[in-house]
């Protein structure tokens, strides 16, 4: 029984990381219709920012995380205004190539700046080691991850459902032309949504530095998982990817525990099956 709970716990933690990173991609893809393969870059930069602020400058973990997110969000905002916006109408191939080029450039720059080795995250003492809850020894860091992640996700959902900003985004995703005609400045909305999405990705990258190692190969190695979450969860909504991310996190972790010989085969086969059944994602937006 404890085994099951431990697996559940690890799976949920992993799923939350995936969700935090991918939700921004789902929103921007649904909003702008832009195939952005380079989304992983922002998660990676968030990880690097957090780790550098902590290790080199000595800032505590949570503030470092917050500053990292803000920095990356600003970068995302700037990139959207300068580069991305010129490519909105272009063909899918062009968008794929552009974002691929962006990945290559950022991988190279990161490698030159930080070297090729994965960044070690030196956690504060209160996050090291294990915490015993109800006879269950769980790694403290993962526990904090789950708690923090839940808070962020709750806040995000509230913002999406209850604020004006969220309503505007939902309107623009549903029908951009209509949204524009009722006076929503979609251009500014895109930039803001892009900044928010990349900031969240940075948060996921920094929090998940333990699970998805911060190294130059990050965007290339993990992009498939982010795309899976978005494709299975559905574009433009934020609840679908949550279910998808949890499903992937849980099944991947369970597989590693019970069936390590299968590796990631199960995940990909599972994804194929789901998408053949529901090509637009499990929570189709009508």
């Amino acid at each position, binding site marked *: 029984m404890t085994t099951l709970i431990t697996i559940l716990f690890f799976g949920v933690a992993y799923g939350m990381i995936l969700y935090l990173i991918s939700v921004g991609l789902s929103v921007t*893809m649904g909003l702008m219709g832009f*195939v952005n393969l380079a989304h992983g870059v922002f998660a990676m930069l968030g990880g690097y920012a957090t780790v550098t602020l902590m290790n080199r400058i000595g800032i505590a973990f949570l503030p470092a995380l917050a500053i990292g997110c803000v920095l990356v969000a600003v970068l995302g905002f700037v990139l959207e205004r300068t*580069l991305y916006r*010129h*490519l909105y109408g*272009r063909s*899918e*191939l*062009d968008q*794929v*190539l*552009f974002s*691929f*080029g*962006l*990945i*290559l*450039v*950022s*991988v*190279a*720059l990161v*490698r*030159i700046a930080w070297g090729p080795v994965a960044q070690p995250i030196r956690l504060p003492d209160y996050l090291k080691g294990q915490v015993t809850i109800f006879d269950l020894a769980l790694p403290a860091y993962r526990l904090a991850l789950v708690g923090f992640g839940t808070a962020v996700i709750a806040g995000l959902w509230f913002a999406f459902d209850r604020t004006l900003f969220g309503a505007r985004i939902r309107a623009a995703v549903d029908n951009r032309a209509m949204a524009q005609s009722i006076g929503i400045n979609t251009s500014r909305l895109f930039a803001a949504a892009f900044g928010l999405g990349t900031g969240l990705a940075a948060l996921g990258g920094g929090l998940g530095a333990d699970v998805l190692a911060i190294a130059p190969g990050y965007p*290339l190695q993990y*992009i*498939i998982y982010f*795309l*899976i979450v*978005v*494709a299975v969860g559905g*574009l433009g909504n934020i609840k679908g990817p949550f279910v998808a991310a949890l499903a992937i996190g849980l099944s991947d972790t369970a597989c590693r525990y019970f069936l390590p*010989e*299968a*590796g*990631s*085969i199960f995940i*990909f*086969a599972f*994804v*194929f099956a789901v*998408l*053949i059944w529901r*090509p*637009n*994602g499990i929570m189709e937006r009508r």
Partner: protein
Amino acid sequence: MTTMPVSRNVSVTIRFGVIRSGLIRLLKLLPWLVIASLPLVLAGYEPLATQIFVMILFALSLDLLVGYAGIVTLGHAGLFGMGGYTAGILSVHGITDPLVTALCAMAVAAFTGLVFGVAMLRTKGLTLLMLTMASAALLYEIANKATGLTGGEDGLQGVAFSPLLGVFAFDFRGKTAFFYSLTVLFLVFSFVQVLINSPFGWSLRGIRENDARMAAIGCPIMRRRVIAYVIAAALAGLAGALQAQTTQFVALHSLGFELSGNILIMLILGGSGRLYGAFIGCPVFMLAQDQLAKQDPANWFLGLGVILIAFVMLAPGGILGIAARTVDAIKMRRRA
């Protein structure tokens, strides 16, 4: 009566036309003959040249999908690797004839393409792109785990092919490999040229441009796309088999995302949708990589990424696109 002078003019015109088309055909063969004489001039570069031929073949198969059928795939290496592993595994288990194993590789890759194609091609956009990546990733993981069959991370050991046509052995100097892959490339190129100029080829272009309209005129879209995918898969599998035969080795890398990305870049650099794009993009990419990546892979990535972004934003259509626009510009100026 005016029949005599007219028929003389006609016959002269026809004869002139025949000579001219014969000359053009000869001219088209010329570059092939020049390349075939490379070993006489530049010794030691046969392995690199062979690798370039294999990549050109691979890129041609991708061009069918990306440039003509309008299917963007980031998982094409999955089919390349399937062909390579098929040929390699067959050779390890005793079936070592290059031509037989190449045909088997094509068959296996085509079948894989059929299975995945039918599953994937009903989706589009991001979902399709992601599924192409997932299909290659799935094959990669299976190959990674089936260590007994594929060697896993260590690569397939013991790959050895018998001499081509019983005479030409694959030695480490690479001369047999060079001519073998060049010949196969020539044959495949001729085939692809015929294919894209056939009604099937034109229907693919139509589907790429506007599938709604094609459906309206009764074209079976799904079927055409799947057929295109299967043909591209078979050719990619052939390229993979060639790779296995000319290097006497198969590694997981041939199924990897890096290869899928690289071959797409190679094609785009040269220009997709124009068959010669593969012939330009691949050598340029591979020669540049051969020279630049030796110093520092980070700089190679940087340069490549910048070029890619620049191409997308400023010069869509690749090198051939630039060439075409330059030629057009010159023609316009001459006319003015």
